[in-house]
């Protein structure tokens, strides 16, 4: 699959507890041609890979070409200018607000997609050239209680001027909660090049960056209808039941009150409730927002994430893991964190979540604290 944006792949030798910005050992770099496969995870024996982005034919990015040579010769540049993202397992799925600000007009190759909890927020102002995806109106289909189907997904992308090789960058309110959800839906339908702007709206606003109420109008594209949805990132209830019986790891990302079974729903709105309070037996409880820094909405650094999910809760990157919440949106945030930031091999989002499991005939539940 072509990935023309990756010009140089730097492989950094593995060093205990040290990321690319701190590594001081010898360095190898491999130039990638346009049709080179892009490795999806760090190579064996290397701590992380660090991909430079740029288009050699674009005069705006020629400095990168020069820097490439320098980087081949010395790692001082990396040490002096720490990598824009901490050493996550897959740093290519995060972009910084700085990067975003530099690529707002790069509309032929990059599409910024805002996805918010609040339906009006985009209309009050957004990144220049960003389009809006609303999770209720654009991503869900009430008539089947499911996501939009492949045809609807292709139509949505076409409407937003997105092509198969467009670099789609999601961002939004609430620590990128819905941005991660939209990212997950795009991954379900196999869109290759997706990223999240770290910090989302909150950080962008805090930094006083440009916002506009003008909605862009991109020429409609002809996005091909994808094949079947990628079932490797989505769990259905049968699978969850088998996973539970095997004692497979699960992470419930709802509030501790919901997890322990003290509440099932908002009082007075029975139509939203599950019949029973509690959690799926064996699940650990890590409220989704713990993965983000409160101050600016960015993701916590790798070591802190590892401490929360691996050290505290005993989750393991090699185990198949299922994340769920109430309707599968908060858990898409955790799915993103486990998959891309911590590099878990196989994480599925159970989007039926508690509204399904809590109402199922014959499905066991637990209440109270997670078992030890």
């Amino acid at each position: 699959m072509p990935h023309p944006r990756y010009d140089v792949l730097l492989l950094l030798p593995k060093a205990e507890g040290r990321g690319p910005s701190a590594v001081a050992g010898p360095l190898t770099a491999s130039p990638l041609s346009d049709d080179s496969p892009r490795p999806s995870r760090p190579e064996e024996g290397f701590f992380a890979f660090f991909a430079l982005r740029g288009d050699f034919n674009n005069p705006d990015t020629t400095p990168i070409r020069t820097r490439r040579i320098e980087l081949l010769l010395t790692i001082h540049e990396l040490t002096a200018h720490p990598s824009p993202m901490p050493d996550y397992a897959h740093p290519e799925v995060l972009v910084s607000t700085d990067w975003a600000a530099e690529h707002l007009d790069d509309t032929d190759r990059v599409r910024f997609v805002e996805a918010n909890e609040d339906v009006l927020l985009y209309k009050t102002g957004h990144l220049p050239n960003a389009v809006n995806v609303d999770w209720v109106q654009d991503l869900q289909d009430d008539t089947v209680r499911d996501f939009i189907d492949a045809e609807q997904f292709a139509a949505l992308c076409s409407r937003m001027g997105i092509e198969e090789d467009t670099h789609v960058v999601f961002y939004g309110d609430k620590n990128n909660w819905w941005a991660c959800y939209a990212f997950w839906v795009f991954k379900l339908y196999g869109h290759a090049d997706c990223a999240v702007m770290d910090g989302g709206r909150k950080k962008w606003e805090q930094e006083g960056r440009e916002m506009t109420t003008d909605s862009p109008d991109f020429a409609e594209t002809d996005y091909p209808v994808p094949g079947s949805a990628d079932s490797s990132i989505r769990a259905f209830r049968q699978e969850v039941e088998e996973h539970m019986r095997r004692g497979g790891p699960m992470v419930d990302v709802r509030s501790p009150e919901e997890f322990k079974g003290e509440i099932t729903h908002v009082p007075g709105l029975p139509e939203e409730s599950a019949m029973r309070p509690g959690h799926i037996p064996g699940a650990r409880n890590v409220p989704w927002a713990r993965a983000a820094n409160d101050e600016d909405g960015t993701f916590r650094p790798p070591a802190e994430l590892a401490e929360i999910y691996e050290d505290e809760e005993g989750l393991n990157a090699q185990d198949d893991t299922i994340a769920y919440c109430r309707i599968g949106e908060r858990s898409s945030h955790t799915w993103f964190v486990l998959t891309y930031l911590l590099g878990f091999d196989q994480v599925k989002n159970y989007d039926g979540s508690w509204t399904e499991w809590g109402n199922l005939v014959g499905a066991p539940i637990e209440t109270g604290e997670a078992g030890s």
Partner: protein
Amino acid sequence: MRSIEDIAAPFQMMEPDMRLELLLEYTDKLPPLPERYAEMRDAGMAMVHECQSPVFLMPEIEQNGAQTVRVHADVPESAPTARAFTAILHEAFDGATPADVRAAPDDLLDRLGLSGLLGMQRTQGLAAIYRRLRGEVARKAGDETAAQA
């Protein structure tokens, strides 16, 4: 102050996307929170916890011979939907009598054409704001039956 019917009429006439534009206009109409309530708000009191954003709602009853409802509220600009809906409640009920609030329709969100447009989860927070308003007004007006309802 305008009646629910007057406020809802243009919403009912509009196509969904224009309904959102109309709602957006209300985000500017929520009056600033009187200074005397700022301390309570900052202390996290009188918050509508069902909302995803910090919504402060403090309905009061003015005793001036008759009883007059006062709606004091604060909703951050980062939550324009809750802010707009709260502004609608202010427009409809600030200056009303407790009896008006009691007689107001249960299905206000349907009448504004917002239920289907916003989806269940978003509607939930807004419904909680409305329920809090009606409950507090009933309680403070000494209307025991309504407060329990």
